[in-house]
């Protein structure tokens, strides 16, 4: 099954969309100097051709609705279809409308702010951040301004060595230097190292709990004490919230700022990489630094307000409201009872997987007796010695109807396979995934070549990454291909 590029379907004077025309007698008087001379090189297609093309492309894609996606730290849970009703209340509302004409949306935002504050144990939330990384940037900017206003010179951010790459990247975008805190042999933050490193240059510590190994940082209260002892701040990376939702709250663990990924924990669909939706929540004084606007209720009306010491705006308007309302319906559908089950059920699924896989000799597991939360990281190092890598295992899973786990992350684990089953996969599917993985491990022992040659049943086989990235062949657009064939562009330099 192959589908040509849309440029290759090009026809004559076709247009897939009929432009309405009013009988208005006005000439186009744009100055010659700035008028476009050549029409853009867009293909010309009828409606049917556009539909067929994209439907075929969709059939060459894989989402949660097609099969299990055990991508660690991505929380690829099922996205209930009722969410599709939600966008009706936001779809055609312009962000600059008079506030009084969008009271329904503001009420929804207000409720979400309240609920997310309850969920995280924080004082106040803003749903302006369009994604998790944007939440982190917001968080570190809040920390930066907080310290700056207190005239403290805090130029360094602490990050766990198992942290998501976004943590150091965000810290860096805000101008911080980054110091990594090594984990101990159990996969947890090494308290002794932390104590040693902490000093009055440290702006804060960005931590995810459960961490990316799926382990709960059981010393979190001590960590909090150490960090706060030098007036430093503790930041909660919400990517892994799913593992403890309903069990414990970041606020109660001592965190000052928390971001939440609504597209992970609250089932907003991932859209092939986005759009997501996020929230940034803070406690006590930090709440004054949240980005504006925040919705408050005043005289029975909902209004946008600006927190006293707000760092400013993170998104052009108010965040991905069209997705926030999806998360809203998700929370409505589960209610207090259902939301409070998520941490339990996702943790149950992970530990069930572990119990079925931990004795496989192709895999090894750090601290095998510690329960994991939402995810688990196996190492395929024992197999790598036989020539089968984590990458090979990932590709072999594709051939068996599953998406692959996250691989080679966290980097502290060699040949890492990071598996997050989520609470929405039926036990029967978990069993099938376990079977597939066991089969691959067995095959890797007996017939490594067969696994190295996967995937066989996908649209294409393994792709040439060198060609993809080499300055002489890199092709980031059809335009580059065309110009290169016409000899009009050179090697990229």
């Amino acid at each position, binding site marked *: 099954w192959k589908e040509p590029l849309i440029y290759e379907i090009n026809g004559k004077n076709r247009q897939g969309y009929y*432009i309405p025309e009013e009988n208005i007698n006005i000439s*186009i008087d744009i100055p010659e100097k700035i008028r*476009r001379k050549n029409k853009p090189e867009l293909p010309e297609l009828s409606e049917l051709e556009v539909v067929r093309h994209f439907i075929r492309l969709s059939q060459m*894609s894989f989402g949660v609705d097609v099969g299990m996606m055990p991508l660690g730290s991505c929380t690829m849970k099922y996205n209930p279809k009722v969410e599709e009703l939600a966008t009706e209340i936001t779809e055609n509302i312009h962000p600059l409308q008079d506030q009084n004409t969008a009271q329904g949306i503001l009420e929804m935002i207000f409720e979400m702010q309240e609920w997310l504050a309850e969920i995280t144990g924080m004082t106040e939330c803003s749903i302006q951040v369009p994604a998790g990384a944007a939440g982190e940037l917001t968080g570190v900017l809040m920390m930066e301004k907080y310290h700056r206003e207190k005239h403290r010179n805090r130029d360094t951010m602490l990050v766990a060595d198992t942290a998501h790459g976004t943590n150091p990247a965000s810290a860096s975008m805000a101008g911080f230097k980054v110091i990594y805190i090594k984990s101990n042999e159990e996969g947890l933050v090494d308290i002794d190292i932390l104590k040693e490193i902490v000093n009055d240059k440290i702006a804060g510590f960005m931590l995810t709990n459960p961490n990316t190994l799926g382990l709960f940082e059981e010393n979190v209260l001590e960590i909090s004490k150490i960090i706060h002892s030098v007036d430093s701040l503790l930041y909660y990376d919400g990517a892994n919230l799913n593992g403890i939702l309903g069990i414990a709250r970041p606020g109660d663990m001592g965190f000052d700022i928390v971001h939440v990924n609504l597209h992970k924990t609250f089932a907003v669909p991932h859209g092939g990489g986005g759009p997501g939706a996020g929230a940034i929540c803070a406690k006590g004084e930090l709440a004054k630094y949240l980005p504006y606007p925040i919705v408050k209720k005043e005289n029975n009306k909902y209004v946008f307000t600006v927190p006293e010491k707000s760092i400013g705006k993170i998104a*052009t308007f108010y965040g991905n*409201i069209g997705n926030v309302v999806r998360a809203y319906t998700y929370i409505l559908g589960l209610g207090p009872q259902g939301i409070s089950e998520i941490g339990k059920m996702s943790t149950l699924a992970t530990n069930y997987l572990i119990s079925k896989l931990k004795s496989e000799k192709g895999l090894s597991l750090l601290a095998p007796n510690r329960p994991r939360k939402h995810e688990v990281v196996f190492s395929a190092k024992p197999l790598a010695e036989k020539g089968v890598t984590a990458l090979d295992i990932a590709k072999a899973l594709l051939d068996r109807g599953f998406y692959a786990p996250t691989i080679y992350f966290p980097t502290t684990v060699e040949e890492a396979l990071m598996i997050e089953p989520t609470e929405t996969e039926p036990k029967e599917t978990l069993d099938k995934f376990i079977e597939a993985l066991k089969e691959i491990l067995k095959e890797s022992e007996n017939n490594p070549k067969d696994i190295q040659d996967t995937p066989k049943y996908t649209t294409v086989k393994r*792709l040439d990454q060198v060609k993809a990235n080499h300055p002489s062949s890199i092709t980031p657009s059809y335009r580059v291909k065309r110009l290169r064939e016409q000899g009009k562009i050179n090697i990229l330099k």
Partner: protein
Amino acid sequence: MEYHPWLPNLKYINEMLKEIGVNSIDDLFKDVPEEIKLHRLLNVGYGKPLSEYEIYLRLQELKSKNTSFKIPPFLGGGVCPHYVPEVVKFVISRSEFYTSYTPYQPEINQGLLQALFEYQSLIADLFEMEVVNSSLYDWGSALAEAVLMSYRINGKKKIIVPRSINPNHKKVLETWTSGREIKIQEVNYDKNGEINIEELEKIVDDEVSAIYIQQPNYYGVFETNIEEITDIARKKNIITIMGVNPLSLGLIKPPGEYDVDIAIGDGQELGLPLNYGGPYVGIMATKWNYKLIRQMPGRIVGLTQDTDGNPGYTLILQTREQFARREKATSNITTNEALMAIANAVYLSLLGKNGIENLAKEIYKRSHYAKNLMEKYDLGKIKFYGDFFEEFLFSFNKNYNEIHERLLSKGIHGGLPIDNNNALFCITEVHTKSMIDNLINEIKEEVY
């Protein structure tokens, strides 16, 4: 809970616990200190799980609390009401697209990758620039990323922006760059509403990292002296960043023709609903220059081959990204606006080379029709002399707030109030002639 449609294993708990070898779910949380355990239900939602129908009723209730207008709002400010063709909605509702993830496993996601490659390609041809990422959050953050990118390239900390910049974009720029202590300096506009070139020449110095041009600017006015600006920049090795309304490119010169370094914009006007501010999609393009591309934030899809020699698509230049480079990454961006980028690709495919010109023309005509009629009826006059597209700033002979209130009471949301007498009107293909007439008649009633 006895059952829930989204929690399939509630009746399997004991069976699974037995397999794990523990007695209760609590045993799986023995590493969580007792003092931080919640021991109560989270107080969210409405006290119990709601059925779909009850959710529907609640959403209807919220919807009814939004004002329903009989005419689409005459509001722009960087995002405008447009008709979204059903095909666009249909494609992005395909499960295989909207429930998928960033295509880390290219072999099983060729369709998604190809769609994103097509987005990049269509924008590249619309902009006449070679490299497009897919994608950033929105226009404001794309501007911030472009400025941070310039800073990474030349290490300089001063940015010049026009006074006619979209103020919301400017606010985002300020926030995002606050940690890096980037200094943002404004250059004034002339009576046409365009950048004052003389003033610009004066304030340009060796500290300037980049100059930002918005085309058309916040007041809908075309910048006609872009060559002059890029000349100034080139002399000082300053990076040029151009923000464009992509729909206007059906009529006006694309950024590539000006040889700017980085172009940005928002894909909202290419097939996305208003969504009360988001999701939209931040566009970023650069010219064919490794220095720029290496510093570009975000995902890029490239064409390559598989082991059988068949063409295939994959994420490229991943070494720029956060998961690989951590604190040295070009950005922290991970989750982006991929699905919205696909919506843009579908929309541009539907329009094709003629459609985008025809649509831009229709919008041009309608917005000029509205402005002409307003002047004809002596309601005031347009603020700037420069020609405009889609949006225009109108100075009324009367306090606009009163006009605005009257319009609201008639079920019409007028232009965006800028100050006492000035309002920014946006007219697109969703505003029929009779709707425009209706608007102006109501204003007339108030003004006279």
